[in-house]
């Protein structure tokens, strides 16, 4: 049985109050959460002024960028002087853990609050207040424990919607009273310490109810249908060329990808620019080449570089200006390569990234 705290108010209001109070009494130095800025945009912010907590919308169903990437950047040159309470989605927390394993940040000083994640709407829906208009429908679906309609395909297909490394897990999916009661599962001593003095009722119960299991089944079915639609098996080079034929080479997917952290990307390297003689050679072979070359190369290369750590957050698809279903490909290829090593990215910070370790006797099937 796990311990949980029940506050007698709506979930988002409860979180806001808990964090506001923690700021006021100095239990945390800062809060990192989504915030609605004065012009209506929703972005991640670091907040130290308890007053400003009024603007925090930690559960807003949008992911302006993967917070794992932001927190890695925040701690790249050294850990925060905590405690800093962080409210992020499970895939964002997983991305941060992956980055920390790759020495791109630190978990030190953070107190992680996450939730059973119902998913987010596509980023493009954040324009013109579209998401705002969908809030009622969103929270009704969350209460029902069903997969929320119109959220991103990657979110629909996500089976890792229960956070792995959170100090506090907020119960959202299937919480019938999400607008009346705030239920916080206290997973660690740090988490339990934070809620001291905030009132409410302490009880014991299970986060992973039968309802949540049923929800997982629904997501798994969604994943299967996403994979079926993607039809990667039998895709082949022609299929890849077709999918990426509309890629404009903006590299937005790479910038938005939390796992792509290199400052100097190999695909921007001068070494991969063709010499005039290379163009000639290629033209002799083919009679025509796409300009600029290397579109397929870039995407295949990125798959081999980040596939092992892909958390399936969907940011790549979200930012793609020509709507290439990148995350469906990355999710499926990523899962295939992760399976070789029985690896779930971002689950355990102590577990090495599979490419940074080995067993002396293994994988003999690939040697010939």
């Amino acid at each position, binding site marked *: 049985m796990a311990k949980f705290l029940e506050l007698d108010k709506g979930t988002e209001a409860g979180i806001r109050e808990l964090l506001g109070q923690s700021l006021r009494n100095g239990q945390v130095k800062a809060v990192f959460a989504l915030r609605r800025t004065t012009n209506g945009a929703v972005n991640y912010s670091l907040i130290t002024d308890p007053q400003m907590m009024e603007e925090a919308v930690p559960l807003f169903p949008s992911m302006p960028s993967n917070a794992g990437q932001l927190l890695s950047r925040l701690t790249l040159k050294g850990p925060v002087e905590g405690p800093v309470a962080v409210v992020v989605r499970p895939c964002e927390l997983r991305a941060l853990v992956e980055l920390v394993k790759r020495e791109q940040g630190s978990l030190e000083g953070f107190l992680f609050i996450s939730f059973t994640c119902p998913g987010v709407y596509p980023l493009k829906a954040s324009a013109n207040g579209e998401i705002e208009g969908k809030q009622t429908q969103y929270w009704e679906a969350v209460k029902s424990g069903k997969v929320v309609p119109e959220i991103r395909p990657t979110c629909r297909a996500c089976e890792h919607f229960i956070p792995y490394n959170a100090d506090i897990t907020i119960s959202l999916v299937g919480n019938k009273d999400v607008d009346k009661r705030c239920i916080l599962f206290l997973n660690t001593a740090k988490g339990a310490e934070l809620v001291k003095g905030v009132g409410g009722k302490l009880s014991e119960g299970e986060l992973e109810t039968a309802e949540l299991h049923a929800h997982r089944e629904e997501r798994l079915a969604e994943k299967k249908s996403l994979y079926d639609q993607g039809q990667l*098996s039998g895709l082949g080079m022609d299929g890849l060329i077709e999918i990426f034929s509309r890629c404009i080479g903006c590299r937005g997917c790479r910038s938005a990808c939390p796992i792509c952290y290199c400052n100097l990307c190999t695909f921007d390297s001068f070494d991969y620019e063709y010499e005039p003689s290379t163009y000639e050679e290629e033209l002799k072979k083919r009679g025509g080449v796409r300009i600029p070359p290397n579109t397929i190369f870039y995407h295949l290369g990125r798959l081999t570089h980040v596939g092992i750590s892909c958390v399936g957050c969907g940011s790549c698809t979200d930012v793609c200006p020509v709507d290439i279903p990148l995350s469906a490909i990355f999710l499926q290829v990523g899962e295939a390569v992760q399976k070789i090593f029985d690896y779930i990215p971002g689950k355990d910070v102590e577990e090495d990234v599979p490419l940074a370790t080995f067993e002396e006797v293994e994988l003999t099937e690939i040697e010939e």
Partner: protein
Amino acid sequence: MADKEYNPKIVGFLCNWCSYAGADLAGSSKLKMPPAISSIRVMCSSRVDPVLIVTAFLRGADGVLVAGCHPGDCHYEKGNYYARRRFALLRKVMETLDLEPERFRLSWISASEGPRFKEVVTEFTEHIKGLGPNPVKEKTSL
């Protein structure tokens, strides 16, 4: 092309300490083998980023061979163990996207195994001949 015998083009990434020396031994022992392989000497099989292999395939190589020291014999102690994981990953990526993973081969060949080098090259060349030319060579929209 039609009347001439098809000679595949295979790019071989050979580790300096074992497989390149093995190839050298095969050569100086005058072992006969098909002239299909273009060797690239690398300091260790783990030095070969999978994107180099992707490059070779996209630029039209019919086959790619990576050869290194036998497990346990790496000059740098564990380079080939890392390489093995990396290429298992690459092969899985190719498999998932149906990109002819059978055009890729990973083999361990020591410095003293000239005959084995000959064997691997002969076998792999035959195998690639069976597959025919890499169709990617003709794609114009990569």
